[in-house]
C-alpha cells in the first residue's frame, strides 16, 4: 500500500514537471514578455535592463529551474493586465470556483446515484425509461444553452433566482470568501451548479444503471437472494458497493473537469471564478495567468486521480494484497 502510494506520487510529480515545461514554453513562444510589459516609448536600453532584471538572458534550463522553484512556492509572477501578483489574483478567485464545483458535484452525485440505482433495479418501469430519455437531453445539450435556458426560465420569467454573480459573500479566514452563509449567496449558487452538474449527473446515473444491471446478474447476488436476504441488503450492501469502483473512477475524473472547465458556466453566469479570469486572460494575452491556470488545473487533476487510486484500495479488499 505504501509502496503503491509512493509509486503513484512519483508518477504524479513527473506529470507535473511535464505540464510545467508546457507552461514555461508559453512564456518563450507566445510573444515577447518585455513587449507586453512596457509601453511604446520605452527605450531599447530600458528594455534590455528589464530583460536582464527578469533573467530572460539566462540559459533556458536555468530559467526553467527558476520557474519551477517559484511555482512550487505559489509564485507565478505578475499579471500583465492587472499589474498584481498572479497568486493574489488566484487566491481571490479560487473560493468562487471551488464552491461552485463542489456544489455541482454534490448535486450530480446526490441526484445521479439514486436515479441510477432506481433505473438499474426497475429497468422496465416507466419512471426509469423517463429518467433515461431525460438524461439524453442532459448529455446532448451544450452547457451554455442549458445555462441560458435556466436564466430565461428562473431569472427572467419567474424572477426567483439571480442571473449573475455570487450574491452576498462572507469573509471566512484570511482569504476565503463564501456564499454559503447568506440567502442571496445560496440562491446565486443554484442555477450555475445545476448547469455545471447536469452533464455529470446524467453520466453518473447512466453509469450506475449499467453497472447495477451487470452486478444484479452475478452469482453472488443470486446467492444472496437464495439466502432470503431482504432487498435492502441485497441492493445496497451487495449490489451497490460492487458498482462503486468504476463509478469512483469516472466521478473523480469528472470532478477534475468540473473544476477545470467551469469556464463556460462562469462566463454565462458572470461567476467571479478562475474560469472567467482565464478567459479574460486569453483575450488579453496575459501569459502569467494562463500558465498558472494550466499548472493549477493539472495539479487538481493529478491530486484527484491520486485520491481515487487510494479509494480503490479502501473499497476493494482484493487490491490490498500485495501482488505476489
Amino acid at each position, binding site marked *: 500500500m505504501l509502496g503503491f502510494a509512493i509509486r503513484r506520487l512519483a508518477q504524479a510529480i513527473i506529470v507535473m514537471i511535464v505540464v510545467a515545461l508546457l507552461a514555461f514554453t508559453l512564456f518563450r513562444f507566445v510573444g515577447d514578455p518585455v513587449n507586453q510589459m512596457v509601453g511604446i516609448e520605452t527605450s531599447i536600453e530600458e528594455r534590455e535592463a528589464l530583460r536582464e532584471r527578469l533573467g530572460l538572458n539566462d540559459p533556458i534550463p536555468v530559467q526553467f529551474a527558476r520557474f519551477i522553484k517559484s511555482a512550487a512556492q505559489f509564485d507565478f509572477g505578475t499579471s500583465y493586465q492587472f499589474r498584481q501578483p498572479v497568486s493574489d489574483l488566484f487566491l481571490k478567485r479560487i473560493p468562487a470556483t471551488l464552491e461552485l464545483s463542489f456544489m455541482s458535484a454534490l448535486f450530480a452525485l446526490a441526484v445521479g446515484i439514486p436515479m441510477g440505482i432506481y433505473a438499474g433495479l426497475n429497468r422496465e418501469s416507466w419512471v426509469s425509461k423517463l429518467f433515461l430519455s431525460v438524461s439524453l437531453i442532459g448529455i446532448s445539450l451544450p452547457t451554455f444553452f442549458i445555462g441560458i435556458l435556466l436564466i430565461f426560465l428562473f431569472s427572467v420569467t419567474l424572477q426567483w433566482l439571480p442571473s449573475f454573480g455570487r450574491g452576498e459573500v462572507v469573509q471566512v479566514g484570511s482569504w476565503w470568501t463564501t456564499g454559503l452563509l447568506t440567502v442571496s449567496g445560496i440562491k446565486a449558487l443554484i442555477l450555475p451548479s445545476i448547469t455545471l452538474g447536469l452533464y455529470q449527473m446524467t453520466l453518473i446515473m447512466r453509469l450506475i444503471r449499467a453497472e447495477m444491471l451487470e452486478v444484479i446478474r*452475478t*452469482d*453472488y447476488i*443470486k*446467492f*444472496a*437472494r*437464495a*439466502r*432470503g*436476504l*431482504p432487498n435492502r*441488503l441485497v441492493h445496497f*450492501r*451487495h449490489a451497490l*458497493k*460492487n458498482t462503486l469502483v468504476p463509478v469512483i473512477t469516472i466521478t473523480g475524473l469528472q470532478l477534475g473537469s468540473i473544476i477545470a472547465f467551469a469556464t463556460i458556466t462562469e462566463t454565462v453566469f458572470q461567476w467571479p471564478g478562475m474560469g472567467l479570469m482565464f478567459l479574460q486572460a486569453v483575450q488579453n494575452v496575459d501569459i502569467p495567468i494562463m500558465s498558472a491556470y494550466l499548472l493549477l488545473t493539472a495539479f487538481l487533476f493529478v491530486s484527484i486521480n491520486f485520491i481515487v487510486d487510494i479509494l480503490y484500495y479502501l*473499497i*476493494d*479488499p*482484493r487490491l490490498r*494484497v500485495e*501482488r*505476489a
Partner: protein
Amino acid sequence: MSVLDIQNLKVEFPGRKSTFVAVQGVNLQVEAGKILGVVGESGAGKSTVGNAVIGLLQEPGRIAEGEVRLHGERIDGLSEKKMRALRGRRVGMIFQDPLTSLDPLQTIESQLVETIRTHLPMSASQATARAIELLDSVGIPDPAERIKQYPHQFSGGMRQRVVIALALCAEPEVVIADEPTTALDVSIQAQILELMKKLCVERNVSMLVITHDMGVIADITDHVAVMYRGKLVEYGETDQVLGRPQHPYTQSLISAVPRPDIRVKRFPVVNYIEEAGTPTRHIDISTHWLGKARDYAKPDGALVKIRDLDMRFETKGSIFPSRRKYFSAVKKVSFDIHEGETLGIVGESGSGKSTIARVITGLYHPSGGSIDFAGTELTSLKDPKKVLAMRRQMQMIFQDPYSSLNARMRVRTIIAEPIKFHKLASSNSEVRQIVDDLLDHVGLGVAAGDKFPHEFSGGQRQRISIARALATRPRFLICDEPTSALDVSIQAQILNLLKDLQEELGLTMLFISHDLAVIRQMCNRIGVMRNGELCEVADCDALFENPQHPYTKQLLNLMPSMELLSRANLQDSVETPA
C-alpha cells in the same frame, strides 16, 4: 411424508412468439435426511426445477402447473415476502461456482452474520459465535481467525465450504445443490461430497443435488431422477436406476460415461444421442490427401523426447534481477512420446499440464530443458522456415470450443486457413475439395462449411477444431481437455472420433485431462502431474491396477466409484487388459 414434494411441475418461459416449456410433468419426493439426485445433460431442465422450488426462476419464467409442497404445505405461488422468509430459513441453496458465489467486497463474517440475523433473532455477537461454529462444522480450520477474511483469501474448495455454511445458516429442512462440485478438482470434490453426506446425517437435512456427473450421483445420492428435455424419464433408487436402467435414454447416457475401471474400444453409439455425426461419405484415408505425405523418416527412438523441461513465469517484475519473483509452472519434467501412441497427462488445476502443451507447441518459450521432435531440437531452432515446418507437424485442440474459433469467419475459411498458410494445396479448388472432405470426415457434412461457428453446438464446434487441426496433415496432435466443456454423450462421440482418426492416420497424441476415466479410455501410457512435477509415468493398465506414487494412489482413491453403473451396452467393446 416427504420433506419436499413436487407434483406434476410445469415451468414455462413465455416469449414474444411462443412459449418455451422448460420442465413438464415432473414428480419428485425428497425424504428426510436423504439425498435425491437430478441428473441430465445441458438443456434438460434440471436447474430450472431447483430454481422453481426456491422461487428464483429467471424472468419471465413461471410455474404454469403443478405443486411444490414443503412438509405438506404448498410453497409455490407464495407472495415474494413469504417466499423470502422461506429462502435460506427452510430451503437453502448451493451454487456451482464457489469463486463467484460470494460477494468479493464483504468479509465472510459479514455475509454469515447478515444471513443469520435475517432469519434468527440473535444479537450480533451471538450470530458471530454461531457463524464461527458453522465454519468449524464445515471443516474450515482456525474459524475464529479466518472469519475476518475476504472471499479471495480462500481457495476454491474452502469457498465452497463457506457457501455450504451460508446455506446451512438457519438450519433449513432442504438444501438444493446445483452442480455443487463441478467447478472443483477431484480431491476437493471428494471432500465436499463427504461433507454433504455427513451434514445430511448429522443435521437431518434433505438434499436435492442437481448434477450432470454420474460419478457424483453414484457416490452420494439415495434416489435419482433422470431428466431429458424437460421431462422426467426415470426415477427410482440410485443403485436400481444406475444398475438396471429401464428407459433407453438412461441406458444410452450410462453407456456414454467413461469408467475408470474398464476400458472400452469405442463408446457404443446409441440413438438417443443427438448430433451423433455419422460421416455422410466414407473417405479412404490411405489414398486421400490427408493420408499422403505421411512417410516420415522413422525417428531414432521416441518421436518426442522432453528432457528437464522448466517453465517459470515472472510474478513480480523488478529492474534488479535479484528482486524478481518467479512461479515455476513446470519443474524438471522429462518424458517420451513414441510414434503412434497416446500419452495422457492427468493432474489437478495448477499442476502445469496445460503449460507443457503450450511449451511444446511453441506458445511459451521454456526457461530450461530440451524438446526433441523427430530428431530436431526445438528450443534452439531459429530458422523461421524450419520452425514453420515443425509447427505444421504439430497441432493443438483446445478446451473451450466457444472461444477457440474466430466468430467472424466461416467454417470453411477457418479450416482452409492452415492449408493455405502452409501452402499444402496447389489450387483453390483443391483446397475446397480438401475442406469438404474434412468436414464430411469429422461428421459435420459439407453444408457446414458456409456457416459461422455460433450456429453450432459445443460438440460440433469441437469437431470443427479437430478438422482445423487435421488440415495441416499433422503428425502429432495435442488435445488439451478437449471434452471437458461437453456433455457426457457428446464427449463419447468426440472421443470416438479422436480414436478413429488416430487409428486411420497413425497420429501420435498428447492427451491432457483432469479426468482419470477419460484418460483411461484414450491413452496407452499416462503421466501424473502435481505442482509442476511429473510424479509417475506408467502404462495405462499398470497405473490403474498398481499405482506406484502415493499421489497417484490418492487420486485413484478419490474418484467416485462407477461400479454401480450398468455395463449392459458395453459388453462387446470392453477391452480385456492384455
